[in-house]
C-alpha cells in the first residue's frame, strides 16, 4: 500500500491496494518478468535448428496444429502473461520484418534475460545491465558487418538460391520434396522481383491451398487462382486467348434501389411486362456478346434463364466472384470494372492467355486458373496436401522459404549459420568487454555468454554433446580466425558452414540482435507490476 502524509500529518492513500489487486515491486518485479520470459523461451528452445522438435498445439476448438515455426507456436499458445505477450510480439515482429529466425530471436532474448538475472543477484542495477547490453549489441552488429560475405546469383543462375531454400525446407514437413518446392519458391520470387531496385512485393505471391491430393501436385501458377467455377456445367472448361469482361451488375431482373411498385391490373400490362422481361435478358446477354467479350466475370449472381442464354450464346461466365478477386483480375487482365451493361464497350475488355477449370480428385471442388495476363506479374503457389494440418504446415514452410529468397534478393550480404555468426560475435564482444571498465564489463560478458546459447541449443537439439561441440568450434574459430565455423547439425562431418550451404542474411541476424536487446531492455526497466485481479 502506498501511503503519504499531507502537511498536517494526516495519512492519505495514493494507490488503494485492495485484496484483489496483485502487485509486485522492485527486484521482485524484474525477476518475475524474467521468469515469465524464460518460460516462453524454454518452450521454443527445443524447436531451434534443422533438427528442432515440433510442438503439438490444440486449439480451443480441438483442432490440432503441429509445427516448429516459432511465430506460429507462440501465436497459438494464447499466452496470457503480459511479459509472455511481449515475447510473442517479439517473434511476430521478426516474422513481419524478415520472415525467418522467429525461434532464434526468442531463444536469444530468453538467454539474455537469464544471464541478467544472475547479474541482478550480484547487486547490479537493472539499467546498467541494459546499457551494457546495448554496448555489446553494437559491438556484435559491427562484427557482423566485418564477417559478412556476398552471395552471388542472377536471374539465369538460380541454383544458389534454390540450394538456400532447400536448406530452409529440409527441416520441415516437405523435406521429402525439398528440391521441387524450393524451385517453386525461387521461381515465384524471381517472377515478381524487381532486380534493379532490389525489391520484392510479397503481396503479389499468393499462396492458395486446397485440401486433398498429394504434396507432389503443388505447383506454381503464373496468374490467378479463384475458388469458383463456370456458372453452367456445360460451358467449355478450357479457354485460350480470351477477352474478358468484368461486370459488377447482376444478370438478374433489375431491382431499383428507390421504393417502387408496378401494378398489374390488365391483361395487356401483364403481357407487356412479360415481353419486357424476356427482352431484358436477351438484351443483357447480347450487349456482352456485342462488345466482343469471350468470358464474363461477374460479381453477382445469374438468373437461371440468363445463365442458359449465356451458355447458348457461347459466352462462358463466372458468377459470385469476390470484390478483392475482381480487382486483382481487373489489374491483371487490364479490364475495366463495368458497373452497367450499357457501359460495356470493346475497349473496356481485358485479356487472358488461358482460363482453365481444374477439378480435384473424387471431391467435386473446382477452381479457375487464369494465366497469361498481360499486366501483372502476380503469381500463385497452389498447394495440395492430404489434410488441413499438413496443408497449413506446407504453407508456413513455403512462406519461410519465400522470405529467405526475398531477403537475398533485397540484400545479398550473408553471414554463415549453424551458430557460426553467434560464436564469432560472442568472441568479438568478449574481446571488447576486456577494454571496458565498470559494471558494463560484466553485462557485456553476460551478453557474450547469452549469444552462445544459440549454438548450444542447436547442438543439443541435434543430439550432439552441447558443451563439447561448442567449445571445440569456439577454439577453432579463435585459432583459425575463421568465422565460418559452426555446429554441424546435419551430421555431414564438416564444421565449415560454407560447404554446408547454411547461411542467413545479415539483415535478419542484425534484426534478431536488435530486437532481442530491445525487449530485454524493456523488461529490465519494469520495476512495478500492478494488475487488477480477474473478475469473479
Amino acid at each position, binding site marked *: 500500500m502506498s501511503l503519504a502524509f499531507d502537511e498536517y500529518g494526516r495519512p492519505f492513500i495514493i494507490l488503494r491496494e485492495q485484496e484483489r489487486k496483485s502487485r509486485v515491486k522492485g527486484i521482485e518485479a524484474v525477476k*518475475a518478468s524474467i521468469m*515469465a520470459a524464460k*518460460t516462453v523461451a524454454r*518452450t521454443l528452445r*527445443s524447436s531451434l535448428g534443422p533438427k528442432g*522438435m*515440433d*510442438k*503439438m*498445439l*490444440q*486449439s*480451443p*476448438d*480441438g483442432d*490440432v496444429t*503441429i509445427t*516448429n515455426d516459432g511465430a506460429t507456436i507462440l501465436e*497459438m*499458445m*494464447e*499466452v*496470457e*502473461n503480459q511479459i*509472455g505477450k511481449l515475447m510473442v510480439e517479439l517473434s511476430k515482429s521478426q516474422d513481419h520484418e524478415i520472415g525467418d529466425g522467429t525461434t532464434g530471436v526468442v531463444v536469444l532474448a530468453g538467454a539474455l534475460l537469464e544471464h541478467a538475472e544472475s547479474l541482478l543477484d550480484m547487486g547490479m542495477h537493472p539499467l546498467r545491465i541494459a546499457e551494457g547490453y546495448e554496448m555489446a549489441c553494437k559491438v556484435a552488429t559491427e562484427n557482423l558487418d566485418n564477417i559478412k560475405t556476398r552471395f552471388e546469383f542472377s536471374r539465369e543462375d538460380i541454383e544458389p538460391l534454390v540450394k538456400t531454400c532447400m536448406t530452409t525446407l529440409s527441416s520441415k514437413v516437405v523435406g521429402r520434396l525439398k528440391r521441387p518446392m524450393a524451385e517453386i519458391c525461387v521461381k515465384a520470387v524471381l517472377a515478381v522481383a524487381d532486380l534493379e531496385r532490389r525489391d520484392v512485393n510479397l503481396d503479389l505471391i499468393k499462396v492458395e491451398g486446397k485440401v*486433398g491430393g*498429394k504434396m507432389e501436385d503443388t505447383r506454381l501458377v503464373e496468374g490467378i487462382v479463384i475458388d469458383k467455377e463456370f456458372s453452367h*456445367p456445360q460451358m467449355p472448361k478450357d479457354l485460350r486467348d480470351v477477352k474478358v469482361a468484368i461486370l459488377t451488375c447482376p444478370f438478374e*431482373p*433489375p*431491382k*431499383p434501389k428507390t421504393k*417502387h*411498385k*408496378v401494378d*398489374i*391490373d*390488365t*391483361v395487356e400490362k*401483364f403481357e407487356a*411486362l412479360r415481353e*419486357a*422481361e424476356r427482352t*431484358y435478358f436477351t438484351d443483357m446477354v447480347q450487349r456482352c456478346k456485342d462488345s466482343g467479350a469471350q468470358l464474363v466475370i461477374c460479381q453477382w449472381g445469374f*438468373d*437461371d*434463364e440468363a445463365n*442458359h442464354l449465356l*451458355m*447458348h450464346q457461347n459466352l462462358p461466365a463466372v458468377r459470385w466472384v469476390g470484390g478483392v478477386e475482381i480487382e486483382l483480375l481487373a489489374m491483371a487482365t487490364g479490364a475495366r470494372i463495368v458497373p452497367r451493361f450499357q457501359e460495356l464497350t470493346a475497349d473496356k475488355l481485358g485479356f487472358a492467355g488461358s482460363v482453365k477449370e481444374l477439378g480435384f*480428385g*473424387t*471431391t*467435386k471442388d473446382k477452381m479457375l486458373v487464369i494465366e497469361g495476363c498481360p499486366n501483372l506479374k502476380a503469381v500463385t503457389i497452389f498447394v495440395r496436401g*492430404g*489434410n488441413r*494440418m499438413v496443408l497449413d504446415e506446407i504453407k508456413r514452410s513455403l512462406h519461410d522459404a519465400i522470405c529467405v529468397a526475398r531477403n537475398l534478393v533485397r540484400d545479398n550480404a550473408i553471414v554463415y549459420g549453424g551458430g557460426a555468426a553467434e560464436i564469432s560475435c560472442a568472441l568479438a564482444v568478449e574481446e571488447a568487454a576486456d577494454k571496458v571498465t565498470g559494471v558494463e564489463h560484466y553485462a557485456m560478458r553476460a551478453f557474450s555468454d547469452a549469444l552462445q546459447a544459440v549454438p548450444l541449443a542447436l547442438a543439443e*537439439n*541435434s*543430439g550432439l554433446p552441447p558443451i563439447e561441440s561448442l567449445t571445440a568450434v569456439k577454439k577453432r574459430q579463435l585459432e583459425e580466425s575463421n568465422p565460418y565455423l559452426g555446429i554441424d547439425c546435419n551430421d555431414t562431418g564438416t564444421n565449415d558452414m560454407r560447404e554446408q550451404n547454411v547461411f542467413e542474411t545479415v539483415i535478419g541476424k542484425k534484426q534478431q540482435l536488435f530486437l532481442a536487446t530491445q525487449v530485454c531492455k524493456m523488461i529490465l526497466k519494469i520495476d512495478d507490476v500492478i494488475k487488477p485481479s480477474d473478475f469473479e
Partner: protein
Amino acid sequence: MALSQQSGILQQGASEERGENARMASFVGAVAVADLVKSTLGPKGMDKILQSMGRGQEVTITNDGATILKSIYVDNPAAKVLVDISKVQDDEVGDGTTSVVVFAGELLREAELLVNQKVHPMTIIAGYREACDCARSVLELISFNNRSDPALFRADLLNIAKTTLSSKILTVDKEHFANLAVDAILRLKGSGNLEAIHIIKKTGGTLQESFLDEGFILDKKIGVGQPKRIEDARILVANTPMDTDKIKIYGARVRVDSMAKVADIEAAEKEKMREKVRKIIDHGINCFINRQLIYNLPEEMFADAGVMAIEHADFDGIERLALVLGGEIVSTFDNPDTVKLGHCKLIEEIMIGEDRLIHFSGVALGEACTIVLRGASTHILDEAERSLHDALCVLKETVSDARVVFGGGWPEIRMAKAVEELASRTPGKKALAMEAFARALRALPATICDNAGLDSAEIVANLKAAHGAEADSRMGVDVVRGEAGDMAELGIYESFRVRQQVLLSGTEAAEIILRVDDIIKCAPRKRG
C-alpha cells in the same frame, strides 16, 4: 508443465506437457487408436458397432477403418493425427485405411522402446526415413504389370477386387461383387470418373440379387397418365420453373379492382404457361426432365401430348443426366433448332422391390452404369456400399497404375527382409531404428494371423524362413488353411498404389508424432 502454470503464462484451463511426458502422451494415444482398429484387419477381422450420439442413436456396423475413426471422438492430439492419416488414405486410394493406422501404431510402439533405450527421436526418424526409402524401392521392384494383356489384366483386377472384398461383409458373395465391380470399372475405360457409377440401395432381397445395370437409373416417378415406356427417346433436360412462372421484373405485383380482371389475369397466366409448354413440346421431344417442380396443369398438357415428364430431379441428378444423355441443360425455349437434345434407346419404368424407378437404357455415354444393391437391412446395405466403394477405388487406382503385388503380408515380409539387410550394413544407432521398422512391417501379417485366431509367431517365422530360403518366394499368409501358402495360387493380389501409400503415409504419420516434444492444449472454448 508445473512451471508455466504457476507463473500464469498460459490461460486458465490450458495445459502444457513437455519432453518425455508429451512423447508418452502421444505414444499412448496413437497406440490406443491403432489397437482399436487392429482387430478389424484382414479377412477374419471383426466388425465394430458405432452408435451415434445424436438423436435416434443411429447404429452403424462396419469394419472400414476410415469410417470407424471418423465416427469416434478422440481427445488425444496424436490420435487425431492417425485419424487424419486414415482419412487421407481413404481419399487417396480408398482402401488400406486400417493397415495404415496399424502400421503407424506399430512404428510408434517400436519407437517407444528405442526412446527408452536413449535413442534420440531424430535418429529414429532418420532411420525410419532411410528404411522407408529402401522398402519403397523393394516394393517397386517386386510389383508386376499385366496391362499389355487384357485377359490377364482382367484376372488381376478380379483378384484384387476379391482380396479387397474378402475382408468385408460381401465376402460370401465376393465372386459376384468382384465381377460387378470389375465390369463397372472397365466400362469407365480408364477415365477413372467414379461419378459415372451410380449406386442405388434398395432394401429387400438378398445381396446375391444385386446387379449392375448398363443404363442409368433415376429414383423418380413419371407423371400421372403419361407413357410409361418410350423407345428412341428424345429428351429435353431443363432447369425452369414449371409451377407459376411469375414475372420477376420490376417488383411487379397484381393489383386489381374486380373479380373479372382477376379471372383475366389468371387466364393470361395460364396462357403463358400453355405457351411455354407448347414451346417445349415443339422441340420435338417425347421426354421432358425438369429440375424444378412441375405443376398439374403443365403435367396434364405433357400427358396430352404424349410426353413423359419427370419433375424434381435434384441438381446432381440433372447434371449427371445431362452428361449421360448428351443433352444440354435448357432454361429458355425460344430457339428449338439450336438446342441439343439428349437421346436414349429406351426409357421404361422398372420395379425394384416395391419401388418404381425410371430406367434409361442405350444411352449415348457408354461409361455410365448403375449398381443396384439389395440386402436385408439398411445396415447391411450401408456396409455393402462402403465395401463396394473401397473395391471400386482400388480398382480405379489399379487401372491408372497397373502395377500389382501379392497380398497376404507378402510385400511386408519382402520389404522387412530388405530393410533388415540394409540395417546390417548401416553403422550407428540408425540401424536400430531400421530393425524396428522391419519388425513393424512384419506386425501386419502377424495381426492378420492373430485376428484369424492363428498362431502368428509360428506362421510369420515360417514365412520369414521361406523367403530367406528362396529369393523370389511367393509365400504369404493363407488364412483359410492357417499356414503359409503360395499367394499366386490362392489369387490374393493387391494394388501396388495402396501398399505404397500405406508405407509412405504410415511412416509420415509416425514421423510427425515422433517429432513432437511439447503438447500445448489451449483452454477449451466456453460454450454459452
